[in-house]
């Protein structure tokens, strides 16, 4: 599952002209497994939204390495999902086959079979006919991971996938993420738990609106980097002037 890297070239994404991601340059290598870490308000989710094309950069460009954003399996943090919707677990998982069946194609036995396999891979064997309304937050996250399994995407982008999830579920789902990496998929995950990052993610992008560091996790999460990240995220200037930094020079 090789391909071209996903490259950010001097990307700035702004809300109301204030930069949330500021002059970011770098690349996610194909098959790499990268944690995007940083304090609250560091622009982590914004970065992913820009990657998915939901926000367009105020400046700079994003090269998805020939992939369209549709080829990326994306699990947003605060998904606009209505968890009270009267849908079965199987139907939810099979949405992951959208690229194959689309709006009108028939659900084949193969797809139903893959949905069953995906459910047992996330530890929800036999949950097919249950309503998603009856699931706990952890079980529901497992269902969303099963949907990602069905999507079978080359690049997988997760935004804080383990928030409000218990330790066992987190461990199970982390195993899946590691497996995806082993299969050669590119994994990009926003995480705030530095211990998780150190334990499982070879690469880290430490973000505090500006890129602090991007590289091997041990180096990126050095104490001095973390200190800088905290100081930068807290700085917010409501009277900021127009940014005049020359393109290409990053902090």
């Amino acid at each position, binding site marked *: 599952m090789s391909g071209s890297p996903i490259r950010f070239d001097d990307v700035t994404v702004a809300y109301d002209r204030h930069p949330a991601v500021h002059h970011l340059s770098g690349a996610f290598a194909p098959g790499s497994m990268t944690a995007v870490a940083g304090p609250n308000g560091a622009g982590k989710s914004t970065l992913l939204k820009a990657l*998915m094309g*939901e926000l367009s950069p105020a400046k700079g460009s994003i090269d998805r390495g020939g992939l*369209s*954003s*549709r080829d*990326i399996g*994306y699990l*947003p943090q605060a*998904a*606009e*999902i*209505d968890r009270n*919707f*009267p*849908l*079965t677990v199987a*139907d*939810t998982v099979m*949405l992951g086959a*959208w*690229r194959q069946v*689309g*709006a*009108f194609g028939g659900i084949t036995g193969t797809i139903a079979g893959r949905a069953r396999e995906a459910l047992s891979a996330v530890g929800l064997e036999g949950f097919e006919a249950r*309503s998603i*309304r009856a699931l706990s937050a952890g079980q529901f996250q497992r269902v969303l991971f099963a*949907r990602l399994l069905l*999507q079978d995407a080359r690049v997988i982008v997760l935004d804080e996938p383990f928030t409000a999830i218990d330790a066992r579920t987190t461990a199970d789902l982390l195993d899946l993420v590691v497996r995806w990496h082993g299969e050669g998929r590119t994994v990009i995950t926003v995480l705030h738990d530095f211990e998780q990052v150190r334990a499982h993610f070879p690469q880290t992008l430490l973000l505090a609106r500006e890129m602090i560091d991007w590289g091997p996790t041990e180096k990126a999460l050095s104490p001095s980097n973390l200190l800088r990240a905290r100081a930068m995220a807290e700085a917010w200037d409501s009277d900021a002037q127009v940014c005049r930094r020359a393109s290409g020079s990053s902090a």
Partner: protein
Amino acid sequence: MTLHSLLIEPFVDYGFMRRALVASVALGLGSGPVGVLLMLRRMSLVGDAMSHAVLPGAALGFLIVGNLSLLAMGLGGLIAGLSVALLSGLVSRATDLKEDASFASFYLTSLALGVLIVSLRGSNIDLLHILFGTILAIDSQAIVLVGGITTFTLLALALVYRPLVAECFDPGFLRAVGGRGPLYHFLFLLLVVINLVAGFQALGTLMAVGMMMLPAAIAQLWARTLPMMFVVAASSAAAAGFLGLLVSYHLSFASGPTIILTASLIYGVSLLVGPSGALRRFIKRPHLAG
């Protein structure tokens, strides 16, 4: 008084009752399922707003043709309803205003405009007809219109069921996989508008939405899966049409409001005894072992 004379005779004896029955049953079959989706999208009030939005178009049709012509008013209502839906969608995408807020602004404008237009030409009776409908005066042309709209609605729902559900359940996902969510959202709004147009001849612009939202609420109380909700909503709407007509006939009540009140009554009973209703909270049943 036999059961036959109570339930069947009014329809055997009078053509206008038969036509009203066909119209209200057809109306219920289409509007019920549309209402379920509206409610699941948390757009209950948008349905209300849309029904008001239909008014100025209908009134304009009335003004141009000069009498209560179904075709002119239906067409006008369709155009007005769709414009408001499109404009509100546009406003919520282009500004910070949420869709329900922009709907509210547009429908209030529409309502005022509609009443003004009717008052330019018509009498108060005309205004009453438009606002509250005349189900007993439905002619065969209107039945064809209502039946056609119901048929189209049910076929369309069956055809775009999956993208509609996906768009409703997880719009972000549909966007990410390139599922053309806005297209289906618009198609859905179109279904809402045409069902309101179908309803307004029978129940008037103010109460047409009652055939959507009340059955949808009833369905929420009884069913747990979406297909079952559709069935419950469609059948309770149709039943409200049938029973409401009978009550209005026997007690000489105005038929439109009676139909809606019958639906309200079913809703009230469901609130108490439905599986998700209130009584369940008061009756303690022993919990299960696992």
